[in-house]
């Protein structure tokens, strides 16, 4: 073994890379020059059929399926050709890949519920540069990466409502609370948890968050995590799960342990999933908003943006849906609703 070629190879590899990097620097631009503005930017699409891509955080979640139903129900009337598709896992990079495809394919409007506020920004900005209208719904990106955000409820609103449900139940008593989130890296969950912490610090010093556990998006993991919470933190009297897998799983576990009424369970989830637990009294109140309306509103905003008639501030009137406040690019659906048994029976998403 006289020659140890690969040692040099490694060096050569690094050097070559550097050369390429340096040589490239001067000539690099931020967008391809060949095919920009292919969608004839700035022209109004008024009266024409527009293609809208409605991208959820992930497919296979009733919440988003509900929004899709809402969107589908108004698409035809708005002269919208609607495509609903998203990644199978909560992946920002898969969303970027889809956004790029849809932009290239010539969609007029991209409406996305972002898995991450920043990761999608470059792709969305590039889309806007090409004249594609970008709106976010359900979950926002950084403001400069989209034109409008259809906001079903603010982060603070959700956080404070969730805490309020618990605080109202315990009425000032010292209470230990546990949180069951989806995954440690889920941005929305973490934002809501932060908002909850803030609300507790500001208004409800009697509540104490003892632990945060994760269901990893799996019902069984949610059930066992709840059981572990109950055993490992015997003082915990309330579980908040701002996750639509976590809440039914927590309810299921509490039911199994026979602790209905002893441990208060609430969180964010869809009525259709919660029906059973509300019916048998394990869960009394939980938080959500009208997801169908969210889908409908998003479609209306998409149409208005494409037509160039969307006000950045003021009131956005939608026939049959109502008037919505628009504030600096944020279209507010309304406040989060607290669902009880009656409301649960009323909705089907």
């Amino acid at each position, binding site marked *: *073994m*006289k020659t*140890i*070629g690969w040692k*040099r190879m490694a060096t050569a590899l690094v050097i070559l890379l550097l050369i390429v990097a340096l040589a490239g620097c001067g000539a690099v631009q931020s967008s391809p020059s060949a095919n920009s503005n292919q969608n004839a930017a700035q022209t109004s699409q008024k009266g024409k059929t527009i293609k809208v891509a409605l991208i959820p955080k992930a497919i296979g979640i009733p919440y988003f399926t509900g929004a899709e139903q809402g969107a589908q129900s108004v698409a035809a009337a708005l002269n919208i050709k609607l495509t609903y598709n998203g990644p199978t896992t909560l992946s920002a990079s898969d969303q970027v890949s889809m956004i790029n495809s849809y932009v290239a394919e010539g969609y007029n409007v991209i409406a996305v519920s972002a898995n991450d506020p920043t990761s999608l920004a470059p792709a969305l900005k590039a889309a806007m540069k090409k004249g594609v209208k970008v709106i976010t719904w359900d979950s926002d990106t950084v403001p400069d990466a989209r034109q409008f955000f259809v906001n079903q409820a603010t982060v603070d609103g959700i956080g404070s409502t969730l805490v309020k449900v618990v605080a109202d139940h315990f009425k000032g008593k010292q209470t230990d609370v546990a949180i069951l989130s989806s995954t440690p890296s889920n941005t929305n969950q973490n934002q809501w948890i932060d908002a909850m912490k803030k609300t507790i610090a500001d208004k409800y010093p009697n509540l104490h968050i003892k632990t945060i556990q994760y269901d990893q998006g799996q019902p069984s993991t949610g059930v066992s995590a709840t059981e572990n919470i109950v055993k490992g933190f015997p003082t915990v009297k309330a579980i908040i799960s701002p996750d639509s897998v976590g809440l039914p799983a927590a309810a299921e576990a509490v039911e199994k342990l026979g602790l209905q009424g002893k441990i208060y369970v609430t969180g964010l989830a869809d009525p259709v999933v919660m029906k059973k637990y509300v019916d048998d009294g394990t869960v009394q109140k939980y938080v959500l908003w009208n997801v169908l309306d969210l889908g409908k509103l998003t479609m209306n905003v998409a149409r208005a943006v494409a037509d160039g008639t969307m006000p950045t501030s003021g009131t956005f009137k939608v026939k049959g849906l109502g008037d919505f406040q628009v504030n600096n690019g944020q279209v507010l659906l309304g406040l989060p609703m607290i669902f009880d048994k009656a409301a649960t029976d009323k909705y089907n998403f």
Partner: protein
Amino acid sequence: MDILKMVNISKSFNGTAVLKDVSFEVRAGEVHALIGENGAGKSTLIKIAAGVYNSDDGETFFDGREVQIGTPADAHRLGIFTVHQEPSVMPNLSVAENVLMGFHPYRRFAFRWVDKKAMYRKTEEVFGKLGLKMDVRRNAGELTIAQQQMLEIAKALVHDVRVLILDEPTATLSDHETGLLFEIVRRLRDQGTAVIFVSHRLHEVFSLSDRITVMRDGEKVATSVAASLSEQELVRLMVGRELRLGSFESRATNREKPLLQVSGLSNAPWFDDVSFALYPGEVLAMAGLVGSGRTNVAEAIFGIQPARSGQVVVNGEALHMRSIKQALEHGIAYIPEDRHKHGVALAMSLRANVTLVNVPARPRLGCIDRRREIQISAEAVQRLNIKAQGVEQPVGQLSGGNQQKVVLAKWLAAGPKIIILDEPTRGVDVGAKGEIHRIIDGLAREGNAVLVISSDLPEILVLADRTLVMHEGRLVGELHREDTSEESIMALATGTAIRTA
């Protein structure tokens, strides 16, 4: 009377005829040897008998009735069993389970349940029949090669074995173990079993068999009673010409300064306090039973399996014996015993194999110099007379002897001064064997130091200037050329010499 009779068997693989109209039969109570060079077709013939291959043409009769042996299971049903050259055990299963796999004794309780007690009892009985003591509950992976070989025979004995096929069973065995095996085979023969014995070792063939069938190039050359043949005749029949292991003229060895000096090398329990010197221009043989520690000593010198104490000095410089690389840098080459496991990568080309140890590379960027590579391998093909279609042919397509030459070529390409060969001609046919012996002789004459580890006593007698004998991990004797004989080596190797001394 003939138990198994195969008539006009033909077989070809992808258009190449491997067997042409071969007829062969074996009687109850006889050992029928089947010999021939590699490629003569004997393996194919016994595999057809064992149901591994199916013949293209020809009939097979068993007990006078025509039979179809389509699968190994068919063969087993008839009582035809094969003991292979390399025992192939299931290492994590008990000896008993290995022996009875496929034929578990069972009790019916809704389903068939393995009857472990019966399984152990039955296996113990079988080993009893063989006259062997064996813990049948032990995992087969813990057995020595020889014990595993016995296990293979036991597998056959569980059944009513009518025809026992031994496919080079002694290749991995020491002479002592071989003796034990032959005793068992003779006992079986006396009980009426028909034995087909395939071997390269002619003296074994003569000592064991009643009749001999010689094959060459896919055809049967002759069948005759063993006693009526001489060894020379047999070799002539096999290769189609007169050929014998020629001896070599004595070599001029420079005994002033050893090239390799081994002192006090120990690695219990494999070997202990091994010391010897190896001089330029000599062939030193190392004899001993399998498991006596010869290979371990070689691997220690080469840095594969470091010794715990002792010293290896090459040309006055001590090795730390921890890396193959250092051994290489000191000009040591080791041609290992197991060709397929350690010698050649079968799917790779002859060229890549030959240049593996010392890939010719351009100094810049470590780029392989392909032209040099082709040149080196082409030279090796010529020098060692390797029969191949070209240097790009995958080594797996070559015959065993030629594969062994590729291993040699690989090491010679590195330009070693000290060459250690471990069983260099195992599983190699007679013709190639002679060639390899000439190569070894040539290496020594060029002034290299050669150490040959061999269980093949005639080979040692032909090659060695001196012979070291190991017994149970210790060096028990050194024989000079004039004192070397099969008897003197065996006396030392089996320990009888020590006891009498």
